[in-house]
């Protein structure tokens, strides 16, 4: 006789909401006539993400483990879930933008039509859209939310796949520059599969060493039996898989190509939400499962953080494409986030709260920055070459001002959320004595600041090119996204107190 496991429906409600919306979306795709699909799908995706967001807020303060120990409902998890759902909703708004592209969407009309074929050219200006992106993105949001709450390596792995698979797909659905987009999707898929293999291998080794896949069980085993070679190898391979998703150097190589090739709204989604999800899982793995053996992974994370910061900052210097530049910025930020992970010390450190705050701040700023990228367009779609942004401030002072502000936030200038976030993680690192890491982080911040400022200088102090790009007038969705992200970046920079407190209160992991 099988005993039914305890399932707390309330604890599962965010997932039910998000996955439910995605499933209804698939049904809509199958049965609804084409002309109602776009509005319906947008509405559904928003209901799903916003509903998931609301559910996590309602759950705030809970601390329990449910679904036979497979799911942790705790402060940190809920904070990250809310972050992911919120950023997901913003990304869905970007997906839904109809005013910028002459064909009224950034997504392809029919993905199966070979790129460059006569039919493809015919469809380029067609207002039809592959509306499957909405349920797919919603699935990805669900996977990410599960990823940060997984209290079991197996659930974590499946969540990893649930979040990755839709991303691989929607990366390839750009309406313009389709070959580049498809190439990005294939690269992301192949490398993602490679990374998943590492994760799975690590999972197997950890299971072999401890006989369990539950984080709490692993922690117990680590505490009781110490760390054997098998366990440590497994840990290493798990970390490789997670670092890939977080685009931490040296597992970052996919990032620039995929960020560049994917449709920009998808890039915004990936850059913000995937980062949050990956770091949520990293925090959970390192602190819940291996928290009592932090001496094993601390030097490793220390080193990886330095590599990532240096690689991101240095390689960003010579980029000539805005999206690639932001990709390297994302790699550097992954390094900064890892300093927060280092600053996590059992009980005393403020690293967890700092990392949570940083993720929120970075996610909002990044979505905003990519939203600005969608505005600057020429005849071939988005104008992402840096040279094309020259003199943008003359053409559209407001756009340039918003971009400047967001770039300053990414650079970590005071009175922006970036400063508060960096300050928090560096401080957390210093608190546990990792001041050399903080010094490296400061230096690389300065180097990274150079390429952000280069774009600012380009926008303000260069003559605009004759046939330069124009700045599209965004519709309501993108306007909302820009308003929210800019306001949040400002508020988190000027009055971060309450959110820092919130992160502080949420900084709790159960397992």
């Amino acid at each position, binding site marked *: 006789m099988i005993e039914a496991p305890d399932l707390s429906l309330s604890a599962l409600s965010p997932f039910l909401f998000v996955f439910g919306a995605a499933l209804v979306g698939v049904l809509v795709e199958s049965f609804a006539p084409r002309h109602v699909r776009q509005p319906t799908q947008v509405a559904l995706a928003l209901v799903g993400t916003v509903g998931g967001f609301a559910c996590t807020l309602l759950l705030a303060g809970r601390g329990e483990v449910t679904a036979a120990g497979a799911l942790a409902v705790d402060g940190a998890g809920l904070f990250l879930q809310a972050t992911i759902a919120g950023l997901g909703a913003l990304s869905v708004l970007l997906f839904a933008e109809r005013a910028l592209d002459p064909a009224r969407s950034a997504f392809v009309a029919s993905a199966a039509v070979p790129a460059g074929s006569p039919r493809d050219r015919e469809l380029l200006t067609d207002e039809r859209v592959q509306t499957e992106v909405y349920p797919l993105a919603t699935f990805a949001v669900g996977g990410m939310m599960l990823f940060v709450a997984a209290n079991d390596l197996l659930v974590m792995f499946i969540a990893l796949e649930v979040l990755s698979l839709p991303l691989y797909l929607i990366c390839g659905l750009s309406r313009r520059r389709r070959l580049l987009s498809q190439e990005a999707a294939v690269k992301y898929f192949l490398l993602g599969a490679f990374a998943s293999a590492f994760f799975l291998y690590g999972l197997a080794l950890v299971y072999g060493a401890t006989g369990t896949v539950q984080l709490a069980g692993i922690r117990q085993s680590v505490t009781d039996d110490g760390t054997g070679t098998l366990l440590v190898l497994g840990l*290493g391979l798990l970390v490789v898989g997670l670092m890939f998703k977080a685009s931490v150097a040296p597992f970052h190589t996919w990032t620039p190509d995929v960020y560049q090739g994917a449709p920009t709204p998808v890039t915004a989604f990936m850059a913000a939400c995937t980062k949050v999800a990956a770091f949520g899982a990293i925090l959970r793995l390192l602190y819940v499962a291996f928290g009592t053996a932090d001496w094993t992974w601390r030097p490793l994370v220390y080193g990886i953080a330095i590599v990532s910061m240096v690689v991101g900052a240095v390689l960003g210097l010579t980029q000539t494409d805005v999206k690639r530049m932001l990709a390297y910025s994302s790699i550097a930020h992954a390094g900064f986030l890892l300093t927060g992970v280092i600053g996590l010390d059992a009980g005393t450190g403020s690293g967890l709260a700092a990392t949570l705050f940083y993720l929120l701040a970075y996610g909002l700023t990044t979505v905003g920055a990519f939203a600005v990228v969608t505005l600057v367009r020429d005849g071939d779609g988005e104008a992402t070459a840096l040279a094309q942004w020259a003199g943008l401030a003359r053409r559209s002072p407001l756009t340039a001002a918003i971009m400047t502000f967001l770039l300053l936030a990414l650079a970590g200038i005071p009175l922006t959320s970036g400063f508060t976030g960096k300050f928090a993680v560096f401080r957390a690192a210093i608190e546990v004595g990792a001041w050399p890491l903080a010094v490296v982080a400061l230096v690389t911040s300065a180097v990274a600041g150079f390429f952000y400022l280069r774009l600012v200088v380009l926008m303000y102090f260069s003559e605009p090119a004759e046939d330069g790009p124009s700045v599209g007038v965004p519709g309501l969705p993108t306007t909302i996204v820009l308003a929210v992200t800019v306001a949040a970046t400002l508020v988190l920079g000027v009055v971060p107190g309450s959110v820092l407190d919130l992160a502080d209160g949420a900084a709790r992991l159960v397992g």
Partner: protein
Amino acid sequence: MDTVPATGLLASSWLLIALPLAGAAVLLLGGRRTDRWGHLLAIGTVTAAFVLAVLSTVELAGLDERSVGVDLFTFISTGRLDVGAGLLVDPLSMTFALLITGVGALIHVYSVGYMAHDPGRRRFFAYLNLFVAAMLLLVLGDSFVALYVGWEGVGLASYLLIAFWYTRPAAATAAKKAFVMNRVGDVGLALAIFLMFTQLGTTSYEGVFGSVGLLAGGTVTGIGLLLLLGACGKSGQFPLQAWLPDAMEGPTPVSALIHAATMVTAGVYLIARSAPLFDAAPVAQTVVVVIGAVTIMIGAVAGCAYDDIKKVLAWSTVSQIGYMFLAVGLGPVGYAAGIAHLLTHGFFKAGLFLGAGSVMHGMGDRTDMRRFGGLATRMRTTFVTFGLGYLALIGFPFLSGYWTKDAIIEAAFDRGGTSGWVLGGVAVLGAGLTAFYMTRLVLLTFFGEPRWEDGVHPHESPAVMTLPMVVLAVGSVGAGFLLVEAFPLADWLAPVFGEPEEATAHAIPPLAVSVLVTVVVALGVLTAWLLVGRREVPTTAPARVSAPVRAARAGLYADAVNEAVFMRPGIRLVRALRVVDDKGVDGVVNGIGAGLGGSSARLGRAQTGFVRSYALGMLGGAVLVAGALLAVTAG
């Protein structure tokens, strides 16, 4: 000084700052769309702030504990670092808030007329709003850091407004000069704040003043002198006075608001606010007094020699702020007197500047008084309001200046001893000189034969300009009596500076001082009439003049001294540094830059675009990770 948490209306005193700031933001970001109604919005925000300030003051007056702290937000509160921002609403700050918003609102209204035909009117109002917000932050902030932010904010607004007509080289140069000389002062202020922070770990007024006693005497004196340096820069006091007359290149409303009524008095506010610090540092206090006295004389002497109506008023401002410095340097007896003079000065000097602006408006933007004359009949309202402001400034009995300036002179004599006599004497002499140069100004401008250039048709300004002048003239007449006799400012400010102590033993009886000053003033007026009023005024300044006049015309050679003592060696130092910089620092920096760029390019080559090479990189990373972990656990 105990601060209680804010309640009621006072809790929303942040709106005082937020309103004009929002106005500036809308105007600057809104672009041309706001051209048509932008100035109205600007007036609206400042007026609303004024109304709020009045209501808050009424509420504050009703409280027992008239010092209210408003916690705005905690910027970063972690461990031992607690960076927050709050407002301090107390009689002193509210007094300033009233002055800034009240005079500010009037000048906004005036500017509608004055800038009516300027294409940059929206920009002008945006900057004015920005200035008001920054100035309010300066006076309302509850810590030296908040004050510093406001301090830099008003500096920025001042720079932008002096250079408002930036296409004129003179305006651009003047703005640069103001900016640079202010920087000198700002460095002092910044160093003072650093010193406080390192010594006390806090920069809030409450924290600093509460623990002044813990500091060594030398440190307090150092902080005091550094604060004074900051105050001198902002308020145009010796030795940093030279920028203020040049700042008259800005539009006249700016001169009235920023360079007469409010910003330049920030130095006085700083010293008054830091009263507990200065009370503990007698040396610094003495330096304040000396600087005040020296500046009174410099301003008064230079004011006698200029022919440009705005520059004369500017030197007069320098000199009057000297009086305020003198007052606040005298310690507890002088704080309230200094602030009272600051307020009345705000009224009459703003009124005078607006009058001057009105004259310029009528005379086609000319400022040379030798080309004026006989305007009393052509511009009646301007003449009457200007005249009242003039009488208030020279201390005509029972007008504003009489009450407040006399109080300062009295306090100077009361200091006692030789220094008391010297300071009092200087103050009295300054009053006489003031009477002289102001009478000269009025005679040259409004009386005598018209000496207008061809094509000038003086006319009265529109009502939107004269109305603020009338209001300010009323203030010039009545404010002094109200502040000194009817509702003594000293009582109102008691929570900040302590109960006013009745001076028991006067060195000279107050009545005698009044009589003395009045007589000296009368002498000044008479001299001016004899020298200017009765004679034919040449339309060009005589070239053959005595050495003192030449010196006065050159602003007592302040620029020359600055050039010889600071600028030339400075330039030489900069040149030397540049060699070091080019060869050494730049070499290193460029080297690092090139190195980074090169390594970036080299590292970038790993980004081949081929999935298999990316996968190889990941595999390499995985080997490193596994190896590192094994090494750590094995080792």
